[in-house]
């Protein structure tokens, strides 16, 4: 419950954030909503001698939609995602997923950027952003660079973000077609036993494109190109879905924990992915 002592900073702009990261190196961490970092600090599993609160940094709390693109500032909260009517129209999968993250209080504070940069395989947004082929903007001392969500996750808590970089924005093409974010969890607020993000488009009676990613079934989110391809040019009947599930099961690597043994998680993954594909297809 009681975190170790630290120095606290609340810079007014990104230059101030970057200067602190440069000065303190590994000893500094940025904090957005604080709903992963503070719990870890309270358990003394994260040691952060210099804590940089991002809340006063301007320009990272907006959602903008236009020209076939969606931009989400890293400090946009899960509550903001759920409340945004424009987003619910252009990318309804985001609201569907955000409603399944944590609980109301946590969603008022927890941000999309924090969810993505945390690197915990239990977080839901990483798999979702891989499904949607989002790009992450990282700002560091040398300027800005963009990394694909599909390239961002290296291992549990290890991402392509360097220690002195800040994730500032998420951009994605406005998704088309049907969607589903299906999550099996033990109770409200739990990380997934298995979750699947599916975005699918239809051409007549056939599937024109499909993107599939899964959450908490490996030490990173798993986007499976072959699982999506297995649906393309089919009528998304049970054989096609079985093939997609088989491809996905080849690529996940769940570990046993108190959500269940590996065999159970693989079973749940198949069931959840099947449901997600069926629901997405019914909406396509």
């Amino acid at each position, binding site marked *: 419950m009681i975190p170790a002592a630290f120095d606290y900073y609340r810079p007014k702009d990104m230059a101030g954030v970057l200067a602190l990261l440069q000065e303190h190196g590994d000893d500094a961490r940025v904090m957005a909503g604080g709903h992963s970092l503070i719990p870890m600090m309270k358990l003394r599993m994260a040691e952060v001698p210099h804590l940089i609160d991002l809340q006063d940094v301007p320009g990272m709390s907006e959602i903008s939609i236009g020209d076939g693109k969606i931009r989400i500032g890293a400090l946009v909260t899960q509550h903001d995602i759920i409340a945004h009517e424009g987003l619910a129209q252009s990318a309804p999968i985001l609201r569907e997923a955000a409603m399944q993250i944590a609980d109301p*209080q946590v969603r008022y504070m927890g941000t999309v950027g924090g969810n993505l940069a945390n690197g915990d395989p239990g977080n839901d947004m990483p798999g979702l952003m891989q499904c949607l082929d989002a790009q992450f903007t990282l700002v560091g001392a040398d300027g800005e660079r963009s990394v694909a969500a599909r390239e961002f996750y290296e291992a549990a808590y290890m991402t392509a973000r360097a220690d002195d970089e800040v994730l500032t924005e998420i951009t994605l093409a406005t998704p088309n077609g049907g969607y589903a974010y299906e999550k099996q969890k033990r109770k409200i607020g739990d990380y997934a036993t298995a979750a699947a993000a599916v975005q699918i488009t239809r051409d007549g009676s056939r599937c024109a494109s499909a993107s599939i990613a899964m959450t908490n079934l490996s030490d990173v989110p798993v986007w499976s190109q072959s699982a999506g391809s297995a649906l393309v040019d089919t009528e998304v009947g049970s054989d096609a879905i079985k093939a997609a599930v088989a491809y996905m099961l080849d690529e996940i690597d769940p570990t046993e924990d108190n959500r269940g043994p590996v065999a159970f998680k693989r079973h749940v993954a198949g069931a959840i992915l099947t449901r997600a594909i069926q629901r997405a297809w019914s909406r396509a």
Partner: protein
Amino acid sequence: MPEKLHIKLNVNGKSEEFLAEPRELLIHTLRERLRVTGPHIGCDSSHCGACTVTLNGKSVKSCTMFIGQANGAEITTIEGLGTPDALHVLQESFREHHGLQCGFCTPGMITRAAKLLEENPSPSEEEVRFGMAGNICRCTGYQNIVKSILAAASEMNAAKEAAE
């Protein structure tokens, strides 16, 4: 020793100003420094919601906020919602519908419920259960909490209509 922070808060309409170590959690500020002891601590993993307060219009778990983050904020706790002589509709309704037993979750429950009804004045039962999902109760089984909140919503809506 980290440098202490100069903190200003408004808690239930009262201005507070003090120096605090950065690692001070808002729940400890409220309970130990300001003696606002309605909000409780039921866990150390941000699940239970017993510490829920309203901060700048959001329901937050005050155990998961460092005092520096709250600097400058306007905070309402259960103590700011009503008085023993003039209960808030929700307080009256929790009493009337037996929405509490030990009372430990109640300050967080009612504070959260007040915000929920502000955002959604006529929730369905399902919306109440989902909107209250960040608050755990050991005693009631939730049924009477849901009843209390739905009854308070009706009463608040009726009062609003009567006033118009």
